């Protein structure tokens, strides 16, 4: 067997071990490789940045533990920007596990410690609302009719943040982070199409192709494109975290994938040439 034939059929174990090494090295020793901020993340940042102090944002945590490594850091960076600008955040979850992501994200943001935010005045978590698009339509239709207590069981009627927030007319921006296509497109249908609201969305990179048309047409003002988008937001907000470290990992592992693709093709052509000759 020639060297080309060997390279054509590298065993899975070798490929995966090298991928693992390419992930571990930058994870243990972040190199701070250069990063170019994407336009979609910049637009997300600008959309939030343009809101005047005290504006209300409806934020949907639409992901669970599977999506946390990719979307959690971006969610944290997004909250940092919102709290930093003294915006009011009404947080909900259209994903069942969103309620369990909320404490993880909040542990990373620490709104009370870092920004002096007060629960019930500056932010509130109304918990999981079942029904995906029905839930979105319900919250934007009549929030107080749909939800009577927050996730901790406190009556929302006693919360100053929700005194003047009844539905879509009182919300300045809808932001969501999700692993679900139904949630990602659902907010465009329910918030933009129905009420012409401003919407920004964060998804896994592999889903970006499906929501990019909405961004191109202006229905989404910005997109947080997976871990790359999260790294952009961390950079823009000045809160470096897991995503910026992960962007080094992305650079290493994706460069290795490119090398493998090159090796696979060159060796395939060379071995074909050998057979012919």
């Amino acid at each position, binding site marked *: 067997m020639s060297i080309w034939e060997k390279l054509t059929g590298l065993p899975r174990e070798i490929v995966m071990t090298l991928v693992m090494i390419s992930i571990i090295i930058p994870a243990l020793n972040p190199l701070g490789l250069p990063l*170019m901020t994407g336009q979609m993340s910049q637009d997300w940042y600008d959309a939030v940045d343009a809101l005047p102090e005290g504006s209300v944002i409806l934020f949907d945590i639409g992901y669970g533990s*599977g999506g946390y490594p990719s979307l959690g850091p971006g969610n944290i960076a997004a909250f940092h920007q919102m709290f930093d600008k003294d915006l009011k955040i009404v947080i909900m979850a259209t994903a069942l596990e969103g309620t369990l992501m*909320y*404490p*993880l994200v909040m542990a990373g943001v620490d709104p009370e410690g870092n920004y002096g935010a007060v629960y019930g005045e500056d932010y509130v978590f109304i918990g999981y609302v079942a029904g995906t698009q029905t839930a979105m339509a319900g919250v934007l239709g009549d929030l107080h009719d749909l939800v009577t207590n927050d996730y901790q069981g406190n009556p929302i009627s006693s919360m100053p943040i929700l005194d003047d927030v009844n539905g879509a007319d009182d919300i300045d921006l809808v932001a969501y982070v999700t692993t679900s296509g139904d949630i990602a497109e659902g907010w465009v249908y329910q918030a933009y199409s129905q009420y012409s609201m401003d919407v920004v969305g964060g998804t896994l990179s592999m889903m970006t192709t499906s929501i990019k*048309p909405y961004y191109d047409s202006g229905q989404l003002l910005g997109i947080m494109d997976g871990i790359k988008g999260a790294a952009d937001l961390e950079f823009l907000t000045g809160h470096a975290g897991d995503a910026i470290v992960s962007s080094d990992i992305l650079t290493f592992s994706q*460069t290795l994938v*490119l090398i493998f693709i090159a090796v*696979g093709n060159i060796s395939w052509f060379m071995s074909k040439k050998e057979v012919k000759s």
Partner: protein
Amino acid sequence: MDYKRDIPLAITFLVGVIAIGDYYTGIEAVTQTFNVIKNWGIVLQGFALGLGAVNLFRVHGRRVSARKEGTDWVFSAVLLIMLAVHIVIGLMTGQYEQGETYNWLYNSIYLPISSTMYSSLAFYMAYGAYKVLRARNFDAALLFITAVLVIIGNTPMFPAIYPGFFHMREWIFGPIVSGAYRGVRIGIGIEAVVLGIKTLIGMETGYLGRR
């Protein structure tokens, strides 16, 4: 008259008309009525979660009690045990988010397992790219070039060195991907409208289940 068929069809028609009325007329009374219906829908979906849990117990309970060879009934047993543990702890503490034990169960067991499952995709995708992305013919060469350009544009360091890589990726995502995807979405949208009309006038009864 077939009540089992006609009553659900009548309800569907009525709800559909109210939903359309809310969207197109904006009459306050219609909007309020539709808000109530939406809230009912959310409550019903909450019940569906409970029904799902009961169904899990039934399906996996049967597998465990049958213990047939080759059915991986042990995994069903693990699922049932974990389901019971989470329900009991959730009900005992009455708290989910702040419950320390519940949180520990989730953060120490489910979160790492779930993240690992998702992360393991990286290895399979890398191996898949190596094995499959080969320019064997013209079609494969097009796929190969597109994939390579997207990977380069998506790798944080390359666009930082040469922004042209980023613009190439954006161009692929723009006219090519968005154009194709819009075509697909418009097709799906038209189909959804047709399906909605058929459902509204009772021509589509698949949602009533097997009868």
